[in-house]
């Protein structure tokens, strides 16, 4: 990183720990903030999510009632949990597609802002201004005006804005001093302009220009008030309102999510003005990819392909029905994902979630106004329609009571997952439903299509670790959503349990999955070659460490969520290879009992 530019008019005492601005800065350091965050509970976060978006000049809590003391109107409040920036978040969120510059700005430790400030600030690269909630000041129990003044101490040159006689606004740089003893700002009036008695705004802005172009470290502080004249061309401003924005105090992904309701209102208003629906646009293929959360199809393909491999190992395999099975199961999964978004949106869970990641919080296509709830419902119905049609074809070709029962159970779980009245995921049964649906139902369903209805012990045993591990995908992905989920009564296990219990639950489930594989192979229910799956144990330990380390930080936890998905996929693929090895042995090598 480049050093901040030291510019004309920027005070050299910023690094002095006794400086009021430096005090404000140190109070905003990531570590104390992290402590405060971890101490708060999920219900606080749920309250925070319902707070209206703040605007410059209209920030709730920063506009005192007429005649009241602006410093007294805002008592210290319990701070809701906020995502805590960590260096890991830079890497993790970069993988999610953030620009490196913005990531760096949004996750930078706050203490670095002790570097000279006062150059400039812009929202050109990724504009995330218009949110005046300052974490640091609130943690210290400052009013917004006090917090803003403490920050403005760092600026020698500020922008003075007012409305001129002709009705046009004016803005001119002036040299200003904050007088902390009486909470005022004093400055020399710009030559040739009449400002006495006017309502003015004083704005301090900051960015750090980067050597290769662009900038980071964006912050923006404005106070408003009426200005009065002093002798010798001096003026004094008594601020009555303040607005603060600092990239370092709210990571970009969270800032983005906070602005979505406002953006939706903007599109609605624009649509009314135009008389036709105006929506943000996305390439239709990308939109379909994102809306259906297609990358999660691995959760379906793993059990289906393992089920097909088990059937093949036992002498039942028909390529055509195997292909139809994969497509039908994928359609059910995509329909489930779309339906899940619809019902979570209707319940308010997705809107309440301010910390979604690429693995959690739904597809967000409705929240981003890319498609409507109705369109998403149609997408879900279309996917289910394909699944039902293919299911009927499969039943006609290879129908059995077992297939009918499994299909009925699968549909019941899929529909009841988020849909009323069952709403399994809202009742804390989401993990169980997922384990059953994406474990035994998918695997045995694929198996019985091939077997014609019979079920082998090997298929049942192999479905258990896959079910457990896929449930752990949901379980871990629910961790960053727990605040939003709690706010809408979605009683997932991470909502009900504390960090220690959640991590223990993960450990127990994963240990059970590996134990089933080991015991199944030793007992001869699974081919010995399925012991290959135990090679994924180190990966599970890595997930455990990630959970312990990043439990409170949604963005850092994204890396762990990715590892956890890879754990399920790896175990599934290794089991599949185990069966392929057994098939190869049966047909070519005849090495049994070493692999089969």
């Amino acid at each position: 990183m480049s050093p901040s530019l030291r510019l004309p008019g920027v005070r050299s005492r910023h690094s002095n720990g006794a400086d009021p601005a430096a005090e404000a800065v140190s109070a905003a350091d990531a570590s104390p903030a992290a402590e405060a965050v971890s101490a708060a509970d999920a219900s606080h976060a749920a309250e925070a999510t319902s707070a209206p978006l703040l605007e410059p000049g209209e920030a709730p809590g920063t506009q005192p009632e007429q005649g009241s003391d602006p410093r007294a109107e805002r008592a210290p409040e319990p701070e809701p949990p906020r995502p805590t920036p960590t260096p890991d978040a830079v890497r993790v969120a970069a993988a999610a597609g953030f620009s490196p510059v913005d990531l760096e700005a949004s996750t930078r430790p706050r203490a670095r802002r002790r570097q000279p400030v006062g150059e400039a600030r812009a929202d050109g690269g990724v504009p995330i201004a218009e949110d005046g909630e300052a974490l640091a000041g609130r943690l210290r129990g400052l009013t917004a005006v006090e917090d803003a003044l403490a920050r403005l101490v760092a600026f020698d040159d500020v922008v003075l804005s007012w409305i001129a006689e002709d009705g046009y606004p004016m803005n001119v740089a002036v040299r200003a001093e904050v007088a902390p003893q009486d909470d005022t700002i004093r400055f020399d009036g710009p030559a040739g302009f009449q400002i006495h008695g006017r309502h003015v705004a004083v704005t301090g802005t900051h960015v750090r220009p980067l050597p290769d172009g662009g900038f980071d470290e964006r912050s923006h502080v404005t106070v408003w008030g009426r200005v009065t004249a002093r002798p010798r061309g001096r003026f004094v401003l008594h601020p009555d309102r303040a607005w603060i924005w600092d990239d370092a105090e709210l990571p970009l992904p969270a800032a983005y999510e906070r602005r979505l309701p406002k953006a939706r209102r903007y599109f609605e208003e624009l649509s009314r003005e135009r008389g036709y629906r105006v929506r943000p646009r996305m390439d239709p293929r990308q939109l379909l990819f994102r809306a259906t959360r297609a990358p999660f199809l691995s959760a379906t393909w793993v059990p289906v392909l393992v089920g097909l491999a088990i059937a093949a190992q036992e002498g039942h395999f028909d390529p055509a029905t195997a292909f139809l099975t994969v497509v039908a199961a994928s359609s059910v999964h995509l329909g489930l994902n779309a339906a899940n978004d619809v019902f979570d949106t209707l319940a308010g869970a997705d809107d309440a979630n301010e910390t979604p990641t690429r693995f959690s919080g739904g597809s967000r296509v409705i929240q981003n106004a890319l498609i409507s709830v109705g369109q998403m419902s149609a997408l879900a119905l279309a996917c289910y329609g394909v699944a039902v049609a293919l299911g009927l074809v499969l039943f006609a070709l290879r129908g059995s009571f077992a297939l009918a029962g499994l299909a009925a159970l699968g549909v019941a779980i899929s529909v009841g997952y988020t849909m009323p009245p069952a709403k399994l995921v809202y009742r804390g049964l989401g993990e169980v439903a997922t384990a059953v649906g994406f474990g035994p139902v998918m695997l045995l369903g694929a198996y019985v299509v091939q077997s014609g209805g019979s079920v082998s012990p090997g298929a049942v045993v192999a479905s258990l670790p896959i079910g457990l591990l896929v449930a752990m995908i949901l379980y871990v992905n629910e961790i960053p959503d727990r605040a939003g989920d709690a706010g809408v009564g979605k009683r997932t296990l991470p909502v009900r349990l504390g960090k220690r219990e959640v991590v223990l639950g993960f450990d127990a489930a994963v240990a059970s999955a590996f134990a089933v594989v080991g015991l199944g192979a030793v007992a001869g229910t699974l081919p010995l070659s399925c012991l290959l799956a135990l090679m994924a144990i180190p990966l599970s330990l890595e997930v455990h460490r990630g959970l312990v380390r990043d439990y409170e930080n949604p963005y850092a936890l994204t890396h762990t969520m990715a590892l956890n998905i890879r754990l399920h996929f790896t175990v599934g693929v290794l089991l599949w290879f185990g069966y392929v090895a057994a098939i190869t042995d049966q047909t070519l090598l005849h090495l049994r009992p070493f692999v089969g």
Partner: protein
Amino acid sequence: MPALPYPVARLLDAALVGELTVVGRDGRPITYPMTPVLWSERIYLTSSALDSTKIAHIKANPRTSFSITQTGATGSVGGRVTIQCDARVSEDDLHEDWERLIPAWSKKDPSVRAMIGSRLAFPLLSERILIELTPRKTWYWPDGDTQKPPQATVAAEVAR
């Protein structure tokens, strides 16, 4: 050269950031830091749909001023300027209209191209309203000292 004094145009070309001041609902000034792009005799700014409040203010009252005050963000070009402008917003095509500014904008801020690359993850960052500022008057301080009288110019006179 645009209908602006040459030093002012140079400053706008060089400035990484400037400050747009609009008239708020309550009649008070609200200042937004933004990156200016000087193009075809006008100043262009963009605002994502996520930060659309300034657009509502401009629609309600198109009188604005744009200043370049941050001497560290103009490279080797010195001075300060305040430009009184009439603003117009373009919302015809939020997805692509603003992209014509990318060549000039990305020279100032290369991360703009990364923003477009992140459209799948953050689609609304790239749905942007174009703000077009037509200069009326300028106040220019060659050495940046606003305690001294500025060089005032009516933009239309320069054009003549």
